[in-house]
């Protein structure tokens, strides 16, 4: 074999390996979703969504957990978006490049990799105990906000970095202040990227279980939360609870709840993709 043939062979080999690797992921996903659909699809109806949890599997529904998840989602979004975007903007546009900002930067990236249960412990100590919020929706949202804050900061910074320098120059050269430039040029241009990051981070928060269990979210709540100080459950915890029950009916319930949870995350990711494409078109 000469070297050209050798390279061609390597090229082929790599291509097949890549195809195989892609297929593994895809096949596993299809098998998993297929399995869940077979188990759970028959169980989904309107009463499954509107029923409170019960000891009998066929009377049981996800209402409290679903409302809990929606509460958590909205409250977390309200807390984390202003803080995360502001922090990203500050780091990218205002902070001087020195050792302190370097340390800050590395730590924020590291924070994104800290296991979520650690955030649960932090939330338990700070929000539940010291701030005395109890095992409330608010305490859960604050904990999840901490968890996804680094993701949003990093996404914001990346989106801002991608805004062409020439646009900022043009703005400043016309007499714009920093604030004008951020408000009229940088944020609109980076908006798609920021929004995508925010939605993906929130969809991760919706699927989190461990930190909320640590904070004290309940597996069984008889009522849906009505204000931020109420106790709550969320879909992943409800699923976890049902899977650990012996009756087969609960396994079906778990599968059905997983379908709903997947649907929520898929819809959120779909919205993220939609915004990204829309923005890309507008901003070329």
């Amino acid at each position, binding site marked *: 074999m000469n070297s050209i043939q050798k390279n061609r062979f390597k090229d082929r080999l790599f291509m097949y390996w890549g195809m195989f690797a892609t297929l593994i992921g895809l096949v596993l996903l299809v098998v998993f979703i297929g399995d869940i659909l077979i188990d759970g699809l028959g169980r989904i109806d309107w009463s499954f969504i509107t029923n409170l949890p019960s000891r009998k599997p066929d009377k049981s529904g996800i209402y409290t957990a679903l409302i809990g998840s929606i509460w958590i989602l909205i409250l977390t979004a309200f807390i984390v978006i202003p803080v995360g975007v502001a922090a990203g903007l500050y780091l990218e546009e205002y902070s*001087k*490049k020195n050792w302190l900002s370097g340390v800050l930067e590395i730590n924020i990236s590291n924070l994104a990799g800290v296991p979520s249960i650690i955030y649960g412990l932090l939330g338990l100590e700070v929000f539940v105990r010291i701030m005395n919020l109890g095992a409330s929706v608010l305490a859960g949202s604050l904990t999840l906000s901490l968890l996804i804050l680094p993701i949003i900061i990093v996404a914001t910074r990346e989106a801002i970095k991608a805004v*062409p320098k*020439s*646009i900022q*120059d*043009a*703005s*400043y*050269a*016309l*007499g*714009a*202040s920093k604030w*004008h430039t951020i408000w*009229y*040029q940088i944020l609109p*241009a980076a908006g798609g990227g920021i929004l995508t990051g925010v939605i993906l981070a929130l969809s991760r928060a919706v699927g989190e279980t461990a930190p909320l269990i640590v904070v004290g979210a309940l597996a069984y709540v008889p009522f849906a939360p009505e204000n931020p100080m109420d106790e709550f459950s969320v879909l992943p915890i409800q699923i976890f609870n049902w899977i650990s029950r012996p009756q087969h009916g609960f396994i079906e319930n778990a599968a059905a709840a997983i379908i709903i949870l997947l649907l929520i995350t898929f819809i959120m990711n779909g919205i993220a993709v939609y915004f990204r494409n829309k923005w890309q078109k*507008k*901003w*070329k």
Partner: protein
Amino acid sequence: MEITMEKIADKKTVVHQTNEVNQASKIEVKDVNVWYGDFQAIKGINMNIKPNTVTAFIGPSGCGKSTFLRLFNRMNDYIDTHRMEGKIKINGNNIYKKKVNVEELRKEIGMVFQKPNPFPKSIFENVAYGLKIQGIKDKKFIIERVEKALKQADLWEEVKDNLKKSALALSGGQQQRLCIARTLAVEPSIILMDEPTSALDPISTSKIENLIFELKKKYTIIIVTHNMQQASRISDYTAFFYIGELIEFGKTKKIFTNPEHKRTENYITGRVG
């Protein structure tokens, strides 16, 4: 930076200027040095620029033309390692004094960049941007100004029917004229141009050169260019830079026909750079 009616009257009688009201500014540069970190990019430059003239900055790549140009609207302020010494006076006011409001300064001194850089917004919004950030809300005033600026930049006829169209849909040459219009809408007294035609085709280039010729009646213009023909066609004065130093500065005719320095001659005739 304000010119009172008295002063204008003065100028008319003393300098025997044209009938037009002269709003352009004069620039004085005194002992200016610039560093990027440890690297000295500008070395002890002095220069006086008269109002209503076009001055061309020429010199080999990396000699500091852009650095020097960006001193006049303080665009170098954004570079962390940048350090400047000396004085730059515009109509007698040192623009590097502490209390100078940089945003106000930049309304007075517009800039056109090498690559057309329109905002990803409509044509109208591009031209109106400078007014919008000044907090001007008067719609009628803004519409008039936008039309006037687009006419001055010789773009009005081409875009008047679709001002709502995205600026990014324009051709490169049109985009650059839009960038000029955007600068004119703020009504500065000085316009800085850093190789404004280097990314354009010959026809667009000659349009912009004609434009500069027109604009000189009202503005003081400084233009960086690598194109010797362009420098000799459109400028009244030429400054030749070489590795951070101002080698020669004088009437364009003189520089191009009978330069004092060998280096200048070599560069202009294409033997260096």
